[in-house]
């Protein structure tokens, strides 16, 4: 994304449109990976929305993060179907493999685990999503295999 577009939220996106705050925050998160303090100030300056209101909206919705995440975001589905099909065991297996707890990021900043309510692939339960790839019908063994693949790929990229 070009510098120009990054810093010109108001003009590039949803200018003058009512209800623009949520789309603005979504684009901000897309650009920066999370909602930064600077971006909140910038939206306030450009649109005149009070900082408290921006913060209020950003903390209300589950999608918005106020802290950076790892390079690979692992979303573990905990919908009803996944829950009855053993989503807890899958989460535990991921936590064990990566050595971090749910919601945390690995020290090398490569992985973050996040639980989500439902990814909508219930017939493939249990399901996880790594970045934009969905993996279904998982077992503890299988999920470890998937993670190993991603770990290798991530380490390869770093080197």
């Amino acid at each position, binding site marked *: 994304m070009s510098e120009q577009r990054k810093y010109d939220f108001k003009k590039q996106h949803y200018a003058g449109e009512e209800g623009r705050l949520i789309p603005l925050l979504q684009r901000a998160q897309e650009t920066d990976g999370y909602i930064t303090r600077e971006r909140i100030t910038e939206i306030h300056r450009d649109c005149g929305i009070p900082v408290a209101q921006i913060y*209020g909206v950003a903390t209300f919705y589950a999608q918005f993060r106020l802290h950076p995440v790892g390079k690979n975001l692992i979303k573990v589905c905990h919908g009803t179907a996944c829950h009855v099909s053993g989503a807890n065991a899958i989460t535990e297996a991921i936590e064990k493999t990566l050595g971090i707890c749910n919601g945390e990021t690995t020290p090398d900043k490569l992985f973050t685990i996040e639980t989500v*309510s439902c990814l909508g692939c219930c017939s493939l339960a249990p399901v996880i999503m790594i970045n934009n790839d969905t993996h279904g019908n998982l077992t503890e063994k299988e999920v470890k295999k998937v993670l190993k693949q991603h770990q290798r790929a991530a380490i390869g990229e770093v080197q």
Partner: protein
Amino acid sequence: MKVLVGLGTCGIAAGAEKTYQALQAKAAAAGLPVEIDKTGCIGMCYREPLVEVRADDGSRVQYGNLTADKVERLLDEHVAQGKPIEDWMVWSDDGRGNERAYFTRQTRIVLRNCGKINPESIDDYLAIGGYQALNQVLQANEPEALIASIIDSGLRGRGGAGFPTGMKWRFTRLAAGDHKYIICNADEGDPGAFMDRSVLESDPHSVLEGMAIAGFAIGAGQGYIYVRAEYPKAIERLNIAIAQAEAKHLLGDGIWGTGFSFHVKLKEGAGAFVCGEETALMASIEGKRGMPRVRPPFPATKGLWECPTSINNVETFANIPWIITNGPKAYSSLGTANSKGTKVFAMAGKIKRGGLVEVPMGISIKEVVFDVCGGIKNDKKFKAVQMGGPSGGCIPAELQNTTIDYESITKTGAIMGSGGLVVMDETTCMVDVARFFLEFTQRESCGKCTFCRVGTKRMLEVLTRICEGKGKDGDIELLEQLATLVRSTSLCGLGQSAPNPVLTTIKYFRSEYEAHITNKKCPAHNCKPLLTYTILDSCIGCLMCAKVCPTKAITGELKKVHVLDQTKCTHCGECHKACRVDAIAVD
């Protein structure tokens, strides 16, 4: 000849993209005269990736589990030599295929185009009569008569509450105001429901057409689709569909050459379950925190930006063009006295054939679970179905003859809901299920009403302690009391219905609660702190369990029966998983 690959989210997760690419590459390499195209979800999620071979005369053969490695044989035998592969066939329109039963009991109205057309091609939709229903109502130019025919069809809102759609339109039409809005609620937040996602991914134009018809009926020029951000594929296809329809003047200004204008904008949700509630949804579109407000005034008189607004669900809109084309009588001839037409269910959980099914109202739960979906996975014992997500309840196996219509389902304590139907077997602990749903509603409570905010928290604490074996006498009664209070003092549907999963499980599975509280046992062997592991005499003494035990509770020598020290055991279950000869019993 045409080969179609089902590229919905389920299909892609199962590897359909790879199948699609392999088909394109291999068909081109072999120089076969075949068109490779994409389509949406046909609903057989349990058999993904799905591939259909459609002959020039239109006859169709569907293959299941068609992974990329099977592409070569498919192209060689069916496409090149014209010999369908019987073993892989799940369904064909001349009555072959081993999974035909999945479709024979279904009546497909909402899903009529799903898995048949390319959702990214407006020409495909136009070729099967798409946007003709909109044309028909615009030419007739009688919005009152249009609303009357929707009332006659008996269509009720498919989002869950079941309010008659035509009545909602009439109220919005009659409301005073220059600006009016149509909103399509695609914030499918119920965990376990995915029918709206499938419809949007597989047939977005039907929804857009339904919205435009609704816009004409109430006199709105602007529509919004509020769709979950968790559905990237649906958003992508909706954007494509809106652009295509605008380019052909089927949306935008001067639709079908008339003076009618209708614009559609997509609004991405940001992950808040409460935004499925209509007043919270509107607040979210306005860029605010998604908190519900008091009704009345209802959205029909004061909705989005204080203007009259009609909010309908994805499935409701997908029904509309069909009702216009086929007439309200064709629709009302299906179903029961008060619940007309069909309902789409997202079948998931411990079921053999999980996926999307559309059945006429009035069919029984048993028929859906066993006849359509093939019964319980691994032939375990059927225990309950959960309907309506966190606002719904669990219907036990004893009530499996209950017919599916709004009134009968409500009588059980559950609700029809948006259509998530999660099947549970003997290994599902009902106390844990109640705890799971309450954890969800507690987390998703917006915090406006005290009883919803604090009451659900207290209920969750009680349920958690029951699951941990720390339940006390009187806990069930305490839950019931709190449930009544939360229900009666919450403003919106989230709080009012949050106690449903708890109340229905207490009603039908009280003995399970009692086993947890009094005997400190989990009959379904699900709640870990309540499980006792014992080493049986059949132990071969391999030391595997001792190796994995994190607290060194297991001791023993090679080739001798090991000993488990219960005082050190943390009930983690690792020994049970590690044992190769099933010599560790769980109770």
